[in-house]
């Protein structure tokens, strides 16, 4: 017999049952709010279909003005039903109802096929163009209507329950904070404030169905918070004020309601690991994201000694062939795990890697690693560094042999990984390194602390910077809070890459496109699409004050210049021929003081230990 492991995931277990029916006790009376909510939801779906039918008629007779006004009318029932649609069928919502208007690989199929986006965002973009493609819009509207019709039929047989409503509302609030009020959702119509109002109105109406069921104090408080939201305009809306004065208090009350009414968490309803801790009350709380989801190591399976061992390995050149390069060579802890070089150099300074060293403090929160997204988990990421001839130029057999000859490592691996048949193996090395990376995120920057303490009175320049970041400057349409990386809310399960048209240097007047093709050449067949040429991972900007130079090639030296790059609309905005650029090429028209405020905000995202 070789190894005996508790085969948890693998094998059926035998199960015994005994009956103790003396535990029977009466259950509370059946409540009606869910019935009411469901009836209302189905009614709104019918309205939505009627609106889309009307839109289709207007498109048929090519009446641009009417089509646009009916479209905006249709957004009302859309926004009313959105929070439940997105929660009950996330795939349908993301793929057919409200997909981002970009070409992408067809998901979940083995073959390489291009997927053309559908749904509201695409319609929004096409309908508000100068020259309208009525035929294409008709096809899209019809498709959308069919999808909603089918969805409604399915919904009729689904039973709603209270916990579902609470979780759907929390997710919707997160969605409007991260995608709605940032303008992500309405690329052309600029309807985001009206959408936001409709979403909130619908959520409030839904919650008010629970009058008499949930505590009246809590219901009154929630209502007051919703009513206090000032829907000014996209340009002037105080996103920071909304975050700390309304959003977080509302989330806190919802969580209190959930606990008081013994409603189950999403974790209790779902056996899979989830990216979000469903009991969250603040998007900036340190455990908002469930770090175990990203590494597949539960916090309880890691101890301090393993983190220490990981740190020791991280800093030890023993991992490289010539004993002169460690992870820390390019990822220096003191400067947020970067090396402040345009492109990193190996230990003996003979070779330069092909890209800039990214910061690691929050790097764990991703679905893929490297600027070209070629590694789909951390072990694979380590493998690339270990085997890369410009980096460690080594292999696991050599590393294991070296570690086995070191009494200190021998003892540490033995005491930490005694349950493995070979304590020093690629499995334990990976575990230790992962454990160390998992220990890095702190979420304790000046800005985090302000939000965590719901401080409304913050420096006005910082407030302006955050509001610009989340609004006019459009930064948050790619750098999503709270990691401010391309990890897309509200699911936080996918990392995005973008085509920005990054140049070889800072000369924006004479733009020369960087030669690096990025994602298209990452070796993954399903990434080998034209629209992934010059596409790079959207990394976190936390600690960016320490990580200059910027971009995948280190071509921009200062934050001010980075902001200028975006203000000009990236490479395309500077006149390069880059049809697949995903960054809008229109200038942002940021004033000098606005640019300064943005820098102040970015600088407020530095962890407290720096």
């Amino acid at each position, binding site marked *: *017999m*070789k*190894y005996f492991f508790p*085969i948890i*995931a*693998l*094998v*059926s*277990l*035998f*199960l*015994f*049952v*005994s*009956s*103790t*029916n*003396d*535990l*029977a*006790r009466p*259950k*509370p009376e*059946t409540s009606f709010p869910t*019935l009411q909510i469901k009836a209302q939801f189905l009614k709104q779906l019918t309205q939505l279909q009627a609106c889309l039918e009307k839109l289709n008629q207007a498109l048929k007779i090519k009446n641009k003005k009417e089509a646009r006004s009916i479209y905006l009318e249709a957004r009302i029932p859309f926004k009313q039903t959105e929070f439940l649609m997105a929660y009950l*069928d*996330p*795939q*349908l919502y993301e*793929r057919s109802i409200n997909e981002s208007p970009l070409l992408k690989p067809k*998901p*979940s*199929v*083995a*073959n390489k096929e291009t997927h053309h986006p559908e749904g509201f965002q695409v319609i929004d973009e096409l309908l508000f163009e100068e020259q309208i493609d009525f035929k294409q819009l008709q096809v899209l509207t019809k498709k959308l209507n069919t999808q909603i019709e089918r969805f409604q039929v399915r919904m009729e047989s*689904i*039973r709603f*329950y*209270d916990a579902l409503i609470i979780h759907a509302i929390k997710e919707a609030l997160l969605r409007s904070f991260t995608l709605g009020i940032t303008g992500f959702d309405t690329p052309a119509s600029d309807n985001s404030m009206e959408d936001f109002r409709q979403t909130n109105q619908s959520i409030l109406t839904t919650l008010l169905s629970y009058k008499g069921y949930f505590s009246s104090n809590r219901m009154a408080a929630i209502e007051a918070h919703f009513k206090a939201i000032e829907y000014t305009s996209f340009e002037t809306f105080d996103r920071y004020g909304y975050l700390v004065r309304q959003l977080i208090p509302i989330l806190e009350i919802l969580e209190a309601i959930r*606990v008081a009414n013994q*409603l*189950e968490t999403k974790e*209790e*309803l*779902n*056996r*899979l690991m989830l990216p979000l801790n469903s009991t969250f009350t603040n998007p900036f709380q340190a455990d908002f994201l469930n770090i175990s989801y990203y590494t*597949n190591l539960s916090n309880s399976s890691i101890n301090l000694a393993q983190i220490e061992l990981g740190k020791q390995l991280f800093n030890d050149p023993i991992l490289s062939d010539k004993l002169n390069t460690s992870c820390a060579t390019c990822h220096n802890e003191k400067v947020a795990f970067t090396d402040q070089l345009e492109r990193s150099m190996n230990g003996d300074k003979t070779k330069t890697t092909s890209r800039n060293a990214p910061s690691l403090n929050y790097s764990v929160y991703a*679905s893929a690693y490297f600027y070209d997204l070629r590694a789909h988990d*951390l*072990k694979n990421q380590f493998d690339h560094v270990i085997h890369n001839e410009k980096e460690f130029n080594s292999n696991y057999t050599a590393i294991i042999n070296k570690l086995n000859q070191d009494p200190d490592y021998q003892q540490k691996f033995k005491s930490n990984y005694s349950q*493995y048949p*070979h304590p020093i*193996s690629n*499995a*334990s090395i*990976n*575990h230790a390194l992962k454990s160390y990376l998992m220990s890095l995120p702190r979420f304790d920057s000046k800005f985090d602390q302000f939000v965590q303490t719901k401080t409304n009175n913050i420096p006005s320049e910082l407030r302006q910077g955050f509001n610009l970041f989340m609004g006019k400057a459009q930064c948050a349409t790619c750098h999503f809070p709270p990691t401010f990386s391309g990890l897309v809310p509200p*699911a936080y*399960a996918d990392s995005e890459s973008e085509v920005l048209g990054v140049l070889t240097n800072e000369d924006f007047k004479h733009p020369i496109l960087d030669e690096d093709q990025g994602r298209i050449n990452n070796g993954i067949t399903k990434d080998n699409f034209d629209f992934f040429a010059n596409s790079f991972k959207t990394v976190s900007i936390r600690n960016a004050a320490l990580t200059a130079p910027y971009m995948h090639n280190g071509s921009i030296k200062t934050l001010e210049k980075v902001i200028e790059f975006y203000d000009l609309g990236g490479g395309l905005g500077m006149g390069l021929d880059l049809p697949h650029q995903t960054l809008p090429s229109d200038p942002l028209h940021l004033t000098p003081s606005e640019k300064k405020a943005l820098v102040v905000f970015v600088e407020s995202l530095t962890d407290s230990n720096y």
Partner: protein
Amino acid sequence: MKKLTLLLLCVFFSTTGFSQIQFNASIQPVFGADTVLMPPSPLKSQVIFIGGYDMVEATAVYGQAAQTVVSKDWNDFIGFTPDVSGQHLGWISINHEKVVSNDNLGDGGGMTTFLIDRDTLSDSIMVVNQTLLDGRSGKFFNVDFVNHTGETGMNCGGISTADGRIWTAEEWFRGDNGDIADRDTSLFTIGTGTANGQTAPAGFPGWDGQTIEKYQNYNYMTEIDPKQAVAIRKQYNWGRQAFEGGVVMPDNRTVYLTVDDTPAFFTKFVADNAGDFTLGQTYIYKQDAVGSKWVEIDNTDPSKMLNFKSEAVAAGGTMFNRLEWIAKDPNSDKIYLTETGRDNPASRWADESAAGATHAIHTLNRASFVQGTHPDSSDYWDYYGRVLQFNPTTDAMTSFLEGGPHYANSPDSIHYPYNHLSNPDGLNFLNVNGQSYLMICEDLNGTSHGRVPAGLSDRTCELYLFDMSDNTPTVSDLTRISIAAKGAEITGAIASPDGKTIFVNSQHPSSSNPFPYNYSLTYAITGWSESVTAIKEIKKEQGDYDFYPNPVSRTVFFKKVGDFAIYDIHGRRLEVHRNVNQIDVAHLVAGTYFIQNEAGITKKLIVQ
């Protein structure tokens, strides 16, 4: 048994269609009342080989001395060779579905073999030390292809005969030498080897001395000797195809072969003499033929064997959409094979269709009656695949079990059906007391259309058992017996001839899984001869239970759909399940739990 039935009968459900059920976050645990225990589970499971982690003994290759190296991974097919001397249980042969070249092991994929015994007291499996004729000594041995038949690659399926002969399928279809550029690409002479001195003396009668391009020496069924861990010969006379599986019939002359390709042609070989597969005739299946359904392709003509697919198209052969494994029911004369499917196969077979190849009847029926289209039309889909039945007496090929059910969009895990069969791949039989059970391994081609619940990006593949005495197979009749680790394909399932143990591989799991589930594993589940009898007994009494234990399932079954909460021993709520009639509890740590239903009735649940 009887006592348990009566006790459980005391509990009943009142189902309330639209009611809102609240489960308290904690309850008062009560341990009184009767506890009725049933005998402990007869099932035991053990990991016996970790691909890419355990070390193997390799022969001298490419001028390097024989050495001990880390084995390859991506464990796929498992062959079983019984020890007729009775001294040991037998030899296990594992395929590695890899394509990377490795100077130490000498090939793209390859195989690992080892000898096992059964512990007489516990019935568990032990890997035994061996010393081979070539002097290698240890537990795990790399099969030497390079020095015997030339390199191999992407060893996926294979053939494991009743008397223990093993063939490995080289699925890695190469179109020219550029496809194997990182390897030796000099001309290859069958029976001699390559011009630069690489020897491969294990030739093939009738083909020896024939010189072929190096890439043309891939993609055969290759016989190996699992006892000495060396390759014997490439089966040049079965054609050069992207092979996956095969079955040798009891006459020891007829071989049915499956090919993982779209289009795939179902192939038959009939040997002149029993047990000698070097001489005989090769055929392809033509379902629409009048008279004999088998068209011979001359296997003495190398150009025809090297271009087998073109020959099959020219002969108007019947096309399938990726045929995977094939197995004969030990208790009937029928054979079963998996057609794993390809999402939109039109572009793969429309040209061949135009050139004269034909579509299978079940394909045409699905296209016209279910989808209102034609198999050559780009909107024809085959997301889930199926299990086919072939009757060697009548040469009839029919669909036995269709995968599915079909979803336009994947439902989330809360609304996901309990059984969903997608892309059946590995297939074999478990034979217990004269009763056959079909073992079906999933290998998902994608995650769309309900193949996994929405929001789950990793593929989760499952191993199902189907009782062949059931004459009306549906997906809901399948019993799930094992789930591979996250991201892994489950494959290779083969039962030991005594029906006690199933050997299974968990292939290419997510490397972020906890050890050892981040490696390709070969594991053994022992105790089947006792458990399948137990399943049948419980199923007989199923109607009377509100919920019941099932010895081979990971699952608590309820009589009706409802809401249930699971509490731990301290009465803390752990999980809430809504709108279900079965709950998977395999992830729960062994111990005592409580289940509460929507009527507020709490019952004790012991997970072991």
